């Protein structure tokens, strides 16, 4: 076995899974490093849960192989895979006390009673619920229940923890706190983690790498910053972060740049996708923070001139929506709070784009 495969904690190769005529996973490959926090991110129905269940062993792949710690687990039932699972609705055993819930896995692994007590106590303290061991799950809040579920999954020292939208049923204020706590515990234990969510800000803030999924395929697998700054497809560009999106046509191209026509303006920008041929329809993406408001009809206004339509005040910045004559609306992010007074509603303004940070993809 080579050095590289050994550091892969989980590897999924060419996995395919169909339910009747729906293809839930279409030739998915993925490797997770030991100790890595990897997130599966994508819209509802894209196959995140199916992929997680395949790794856990609750679902059998139609094709492809799955390895955990370099060993193929295709033939192993879930209870032999040494995984920890955390579910959206906690899935605590309602007829057992909190301590018995946490100790269940140790009991199944024939750990001696005295050791179980010690490890359960430590696990409960890790999630800061040391004093709740005697309670029943239904006597706890959602946040507490999910912390217990996390303790229960981690106490058996699994090779990998799988979390399926663990915080989506928890109220919003508590969610941020839980995220930080999960991240801290994960880093402290250095445990390989696969996390499923459809909340992009959760994914961006927690993950070492994110696999963006759509229609049963992985669209891009990158670090959060790369995903944001170098999206690999128009799906990723529109899914991650706020972005402006315009149809355009390729007019000319060189090795590294292309010129596109958008409405009646011509723009030259770096190529971000190999399949862009002259005359083809394309989509231009640019983030609101890469746009600047300039005086109308100035030379700097490379996207043209429009009218201020709306202000949306966001605390650290103001999003100014500019409407063009052809009804296109652009979102421009202006730092600070002054934009509301600097650019009155109805005023004509020019929009300048930092085209070095624009993305262009073929229109599907």
């Amino acid at each position, binding site marked *: 076995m080579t050095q590289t495969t050994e550091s892969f904690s989980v590897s999924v190769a060419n996995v395919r899974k169909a339910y009747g005529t729906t293809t839930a996973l279409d030739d998915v490959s993925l490797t997770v490093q030991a100790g890595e926090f990897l997130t599966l991110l994508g819209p509802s129905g894209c196959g995140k849960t199916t992929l997680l269940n395949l790794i856990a062993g609750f679902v059998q792949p139609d094709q492809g192989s799955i390895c955990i710690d370099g060993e193929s687990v295709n033939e192993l039932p879930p*209870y032999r895979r040494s995984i920890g699972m955390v579910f959206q609705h906690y*899935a605590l055993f309602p007829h057992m006390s909190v301590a018995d819930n946490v100790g*269940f896995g140790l009991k*199944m692994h024939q750990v001696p009673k005295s050791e179980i007590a010690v490890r359960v106590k430590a696990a409960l303290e890790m999630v800061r619920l040391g004093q709740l061991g005697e309670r029943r799950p239904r006597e706890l809040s959602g946040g507490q229940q999910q912390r217990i579920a996390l303790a229960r999954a981690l106490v058996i020292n699994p090779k990998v923890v799988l979390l399926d939208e663990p915080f989506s049923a928890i109220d919003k204020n508590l969610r941020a706190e839980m995220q930080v706590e999960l991240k801290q515990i994960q880093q402290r234990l250095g445990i390989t983690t696969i996390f499923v969510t459809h909340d992009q800000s959760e994914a961006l803030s927690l993950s070492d790498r994110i696999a963006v999924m759509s229609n049963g395929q992985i669209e891009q697998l990158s670090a959060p910053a790369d995903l944001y700054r170098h999206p690999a497809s128009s799906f990723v560009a529109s899914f991650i972060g706020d972005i402006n999106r315009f149809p355009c046509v390729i007019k000319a191209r060189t090795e590294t740049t292309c010129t596109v026509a958008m409405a009646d303006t011509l723009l030259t920008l770096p190529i971000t996708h190999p399949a862009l041929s002259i005359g083809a329809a394309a989509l231009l993406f640019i983030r609101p923070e890469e746009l600047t408001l300039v005086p109308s009809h100035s030379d700097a206004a490379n996207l043209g001139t429009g009218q201020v339509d709306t202000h949306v005040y966001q605390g650290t910045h103001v999003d100014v929506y500019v409407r063009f004559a052809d009804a296109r609306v652009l979102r421009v992010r202006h730092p600070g709070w002054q934009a509301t007074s600097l650019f009155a509603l109805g005023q004509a303004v020019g929009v300048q784009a930092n085209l070095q940070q624009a993305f262009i993809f073929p229109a599907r």
Partner: protein
Amino acid sequence: MDQLLRVMVRVVIALTLCFVALPSLVVIVTAFNDKAILMFPPTGFSLRWFERAITYDDFRRGLMNGFIITAWASSLALVCGTLGAVVIERYRFAGRRWLEAILLSPLVIPHFTLGIAMLILASAMHVERTYSLVVLCHVILVLPFVMRSVYVSLKNIDPALGRAAASLGATPLQCFLRIDLPLLAPGLAGGWLFAAILSFNEFTATLFVTGQRTQTLPVAMYTYVREYADPTMAALSALLIAATVLFLLAANRWLGLARILSIEAGR
């Protein structure tokens, strides 16, 4: 208008309850008559029919037989029904839908059909009319009820619990014993209770498959009525009513009847 409606609803409910309770009341009152005829209203007061009901040999044996048969039949049905429900709910196999439909529909076979069938089969195979035959017959009769009760409780268990247990290292058997079974307990108790009540009161099919030695209380009562028309029957009925009320009160106290019944209502 609202007021009137509310009063009317109450009156209707009260009348319905009276109507339901009336037969029981008539029987109880008749049981205290002093004459050797079934008649209402009674002409005097006596407890001798109660004495006869308690001491009459066939009734005593019938009661004992009933207990034995009911205990075996409902317990066996509980075990088979639980296994069947688990298989139908958890596993996917060819013909599962059919099996589900057949086993969960208790009203398909008329009781006398089953009774005759069992009798014919027994005599064709030269089997005596033993307890086993009666128990077998009762198991067949109550199985669908038990199975449905367990099946519904099983459906109410979050599938994520089983997955959580498996991820923690529990084999399917451990998962069943430590997660499913404890959570099924109310459903099992409810299923057993229904089975027991059905089996104990069953008459039509039982009439065919019991002999003099194995007859249950309802069959013994039927035989008695064909020979005598004194209030012993009424006294016995009164005793059964009292026993049932006590039994249900106890069940409600310890098992939570509402909980058991709501499982049935959930189907």
